[in-house]
């Protein structure tokens, strides 16, 4: 069984990885992208994930571990593994704004789309992804709201532990939540 932390970029996936690490779960990561202003506690990424469409042999090393895979790449997971997916959800306006802020910090241009169209595009992508997760037996999915984690970290940590059927240190998990990491609070 492979645990996957997924969602759109900037939806709280790094926070969830931090929580799982605190809780005692082994993560599949490398240090390719170090912590920075946009993710002060680190990204918890594994570089080969980025080319999942082409190469997935590394998945064997993800068994019994948690790995971060963004939502758009889930469709490329092969069906010879079972996956428990913790899918992070955050209001798309915030997610888009957070992505924009991160791009500005690294000095890159993002999508040449009006925000409303970008959000609409992400919405449609998410609908397709949710449909795929529901239809395919190799996925078991728990949807976690980012703001609920900030609001009630312990309850959500319990929920996640139940889902994973693990013996995570729930208290340590909830201590990973730090409201100051919420860069793009929408007023």
């Amino acid at each position: 069984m492979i645990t996957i932390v997924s969602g759109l970029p900037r939806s709280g996936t790094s926070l969830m990885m931090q929580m799982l690490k605190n809780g005692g779960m082994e993560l599949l990561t490398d240090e390719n992208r170090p912590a920075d202003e946009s993710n002060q506690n680190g990204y918890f990424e594994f570089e080969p994930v980025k080319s999942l469409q082409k190469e997935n042999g590394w998945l064997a090393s993800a068994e019994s571990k948690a790995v971060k895979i963004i939502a758009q790449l889930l469709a490329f997971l092969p069906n010879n593994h079972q996956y428990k997916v913790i899918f992070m959800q955050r209001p798309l306006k915030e997610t888009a704004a957070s992505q924009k802020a991160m791009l500005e910090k690294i000095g890159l241009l993002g999508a040449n789309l009006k925000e409303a169209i970008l959000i609409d595009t992400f919405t449609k992508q998410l609908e397709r992804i949710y449909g795929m997760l529901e239809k395919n037996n190799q996925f078991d999915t728990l949807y976690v709201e980012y703001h609920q984690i900030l609001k009630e970290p312990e309850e959500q940590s319990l929920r996640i532990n139940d889902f994973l059927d693990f013996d995570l240190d729930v208290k340590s998990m909830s201590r990973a939540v730090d409201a100051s990491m919420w860069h793009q609070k929408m007023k």
Partner: protein
Amino acid sequence: MSKKHKVLLIGWDAADWKIINPLLDAGKMPALESLINQGVMGNLATLDPPMSPILWTSIATGMYGDKHGILNFTEPAPETGAIRPVSSKSRKVKAIWNILGQSGYKTHSIGWWPSHPAEPINGICVSNFYQRAHAPIDKPWPMPPGTIHPGDKTGIFDKLRVHPAELTQAHLLPFVPDAAKINQEKNKSLTSLARIIADCASIHAAATHILENEEWDFLAVYYDAIDHFCHGFMNFHPPKMKPVHQEAFDLYKNVVTGGYLFHDMMLDRLLQLAGDDTTVILISDHGFHSDHLRPKGIPKEPAGPAHQHRDYGIVCMKGHNILKDERIYGAGLLDIVPTILNLLDLPIGRDMDGKPLMQIFEKPVSPQYIPSWEAVEGDCGMLPEDVQHDPYAEQEAMEQLIALGYVEKPDDDKQKALNTTLNESKYFLARINMQKNAFENAASILKKLHTENPAETRYAFYLAKCHHILNDNDLCRDVIQTIVRQQEKHFPQLDLLQGSLALADKKYVEALAFLEKAEKADPRMPTLHQQIGMVYLKMNKFIDAERALLKALEIDPDSHIAHDRLALVYLKMRRNQEAAYYALNAVGLLFHFPTAHYHLGLALARLQNHDRAAQAFEVCVNILPGDKAAHRMLVRLYKNKLNLPDKAKEHQKILDSQKNKEKPS
């Protein structure tokens, strides 16, 4: 409950009257001849850019490409970073089979471009991925998933397909009688030919199966074979082109004709199965140059073969309340769906860009309108919303994920193909905007393309054209200079544009110098002589203008611009009968041509045919509501000649309100 009239819509990609007419005269296309004799026929004006997936979707929706969303042969596949053939998922609006399905008609669609994946319409949808054999005959040849709707019909349609390897000499010899002379190890022309014929036969088998075995009210079937025959073999069609070797000419000179005769045989069977009560509409999306206008070479650019396309395809219709043995004029691709809706007493969407062809009717049918069929609720058989997508927006979203470092950039080859697709789609969108007279939109797109791709002359050339049309002549000159600096060899089209620029600046001698330079390079360049004619017209050298425009028409008898300019020359010379003749030709070729309607109105007014003059001016202002000259003529005619003071007042009111808008505040 009224009886539903059946409609059979047949698409023959690239079919052209120029090739058909001699075959009809020789009695070699009896099925088409019978269709023509029982109905109406005419030219069908294409759209720019003349790219088939864009055109066939415009035909099926009645809308330009900026509305329907199909912009190219390929589209981005954001999930893989690659490109894929353009798909039905990208179409944003309803096609005629969706509208009719929603209105209670049993509808079927076969092989339309693009139509994969097949839509869940209330009848059968066979996608354009159906016919192509992608494995040898001794290997499995499954259809890609989503080729047939409903899925339980897959088995039946699977068996109807024809594999190219099934064809024998008997099938190929009518096309290439000396096929035995071809060394098939070195020359794969017979393989290509077999593939075209087999694909076509598969589509035809699917169509006839449905007509024979299924309940139907509407069937749309698309044959792409004539286009393939022409792209592959038109250079060998008589008369022999100079660069073509005699041996090759002798081998392949019958292929194009053979293709048309094959289609006539298939048409015969379709008409038989459709029955006498069915309305049959046969169309093509563009023509195909088959004479001295065949281009000498194909430019090395994406979709370069489209330079072989001609501006006029064919339309032929017969059925309930349609005139018999009549010619129609001014029809365009966008008019097919509004005409079908009008025929079936269904409303036309005001957001459709075409108009119903009223001239086809025995008894006129007043069109009804609704704001849009997109707003009509109910199951219409379009792909589910979660399947439909905008591949360009998705690609931009994917670019964002790549920039954020979450997805790997595609490798260089994939990135190159992707960039080409994205750029060309934007380029085609710009040309669509130009076709719609939205030149500012077009210029905005082209400016960005030109900045990002300075070496791509086509983008710069069209940007220069936009600036010229928008009277931004300084900007036009700047762009022309960048082209001049970059061009490696002489580019006569640029001389033509520079000539137009000089003409706009009233520098007639300079304009003639550029145009003569272009003429030396390419004496039979389409549009050149009509531009020379215009320069002489502006110089009041009417005899020279007449000579140049007659030359333009000798090169291309279907140039609506040359006809209109000649009308203007004759108006200046007070040869009003000839002016009316050529103006009528112009609007007959392109109805959406307000200037030509104005010239026609002038000529008819001078000939004292005031009623018809008023009609012509009314059409002009209908297309171009701001045309003050036409409104002024209408005021004069209604007041002084036709004794219709109320109508005169109406147009005077419009003139007055235009004047008030122009007054500085």
